[in-house]
């Protein structure tokens, strides 16, 4: 049995890291907003989904123009990522302004329910627009980065099988890592990033430092939603076919990743996302093997939620979240 697990390990690692990177970047959106407003923005999964649709629309639009075939695919991807991230970022700012800010001082359950309501609205708006232009709400984008790559793991040791994947896996992983490194730098090293952490710790005192708290909150929503939208584009590139409901389960899992790493903790969300992706792919490859065929690969989601429950029982503050020691 161990031998079989080891054989599939290279493939599990490649798939897991890629999936984990997607979870991680989406988890950042949850964790940033939670850190600053103690709000679980359940609409974030739908912002991700909107990003997938907006990105696909741009791909179809740009590639429909004759001269666009001259543009290298990679440049095209960067253009679409920037355009989409800007739009979903603004969507996030708008959501906060219209739906959450008026409820800033309401009991926490109320903005949570509002967030769930917004998810439904976004799903239906995207579905409506997709059907209007496409005739069907399930949309297939152009195929990009589809060359097959073989990772010759068997050359390292005969225990392993080779791993096979599309170039898009590398693109997704690479872009996601760049986004995470950039965000980490922004939050820890820049003035506005530090202000963001200050607002998350103590909104009132931050305002006494001449920090415009509403502006910081808007920036947080912009960045979180831009990252979510960009990940949506990556998802669309990787899987090709999207529908308005992809944000639900992926959003939930990214939320689990955020809780796993310690909600409110940015590096925690990155670690949590990567771990969850790896564990899920591991489960998908090996569950039936480990349970003697009782549970198949389709139980990988149950596995993800079981992890959430275990974390909540044994380490409710998450892997990297620690109760802060504060002196008064």
């Amino acid at each position, binding site marked *: 049995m161990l031998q079989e697990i080891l054989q599939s390990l290279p493939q599990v690692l490649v798939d897991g890291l890629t999936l984990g990177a997607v979870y991680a970047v989406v988890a950042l959106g949850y964790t940033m907003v939670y850190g600053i407003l103690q709000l679980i923005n359940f609409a974030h999964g739908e912002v991700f989904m909107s990003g997938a649709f907006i990105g696909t629309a741009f791909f179809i639009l740009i590639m429909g123009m004759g001269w666009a075939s001259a543009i290298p695919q990679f440049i095209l991807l960067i253009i679409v990522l920037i355009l989409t991230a800007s739009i979903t970022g603004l969507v996030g700012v708008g959501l906060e302004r219209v739906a959450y800010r008026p409820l800033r001082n309401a009991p926490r359950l109320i903005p949570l329910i509002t967030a769930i309501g917004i998810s439904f609205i976004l799903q239906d708006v995207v579905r409506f627009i997709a059907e209007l232009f496409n005739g069907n709400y399930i949309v297939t984008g152009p195929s990009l980065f589809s060359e097959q790559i073989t990772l010759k793991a068997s050359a390292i040791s005969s225990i392993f099988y080779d791993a096979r994947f599309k170039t898009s896996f590398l693109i997704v992983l690479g872009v996601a890592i760049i986004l995470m490194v950039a965000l980490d730098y922004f939050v820890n090293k820049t003035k506005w990033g*530090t202000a963001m952490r*200050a607002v998350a710790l103590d909104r009132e005192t931050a305002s006494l430092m001449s920090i415009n708290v509403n502006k910081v909150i808007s920036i947080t929503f912009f960045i979180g939603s831009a990252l979510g939208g960009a990940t949506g584009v990556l998802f669309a590139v990787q899987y090709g076919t999207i529908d308005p409901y992809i944000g639900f389960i992926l959003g939930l899992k990214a939320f689990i990743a955020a809780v796993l790493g310690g909600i409110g903790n940015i590096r925690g969300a990155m670690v949590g996302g990567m771990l969850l992706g790896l564990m899920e792919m591991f489960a998908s490859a090996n569950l039936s093997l480990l349970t003697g065929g009782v549970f198949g690969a389709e139980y990988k989601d149950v596995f993800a939620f079981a992890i959430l429950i275990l974390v909540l029982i044994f380490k409710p503050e998450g892997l990297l979240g620690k109760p*802060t020691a504060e002196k008064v």
Partner: protein
Amino acid sequence: MTVLEVNNIETYYGAIQALRGISLHVDEGEIVTLIGSNGAGKSTTLKSISGLAKVKTGTIQYKGKEITNKPPHQTTILGMAHVPEGRRIFSNLTVKENLLMGAFSVKGKDVIQERMEQVFTHFPKLKERLNQKGGTMSGGEQQMLAIGRALMMNPELLMLDEPSMGLAPIIVEQIFEIILHLNSSGITILLVEQNAYQALSIAHRGYVIQNGEIVLSGKGSDLVENDEIKEAYLA
């Protein structure tokens, strides 16, 4: 010249009235103290001035400029700094980051560096602790950081809310010395204190607040001698 003019303000927390028509003024170069017991409305007065609490009626002017109900990021940028009760250090930020947040609206790296050096002359300990997290320092050090952070704004008016709270007597002594020192360097000070004797002994003028109203005001030296005050706060 009058730096701060508070005119008959009333502030509510929900249905509860915290301030019942407070009027006070602070002139340039003064140390003015606002004393009173717990829950009298001292902190609420400061919060109303800086904009953390909404005033229902009355007006507040800073250097002749109307600032009633302006949000804190707009009032503090005019040159008034408010060091809140309980220090409110950003516990997970380093000492340096805390100081930089004080200088959030300040343009120019040189200016910020210069001000930081100035803060270190008042509080040399902060320089040693530059990369330590704010929340891991002792109460006295946190108070010094809170004042240092406010000084990064280069304020003309420094409003301090109970800087002596919870500190050892020897540290309290130091804090009051620093307040005197800051005042002699030209900063006008509005000091809220429960520690009435010490506050009055360094203040030019004082106001006594009770149940959201000013019940007594006068020179610091007179108030220290006042029998009512002696009985109520200095016993």
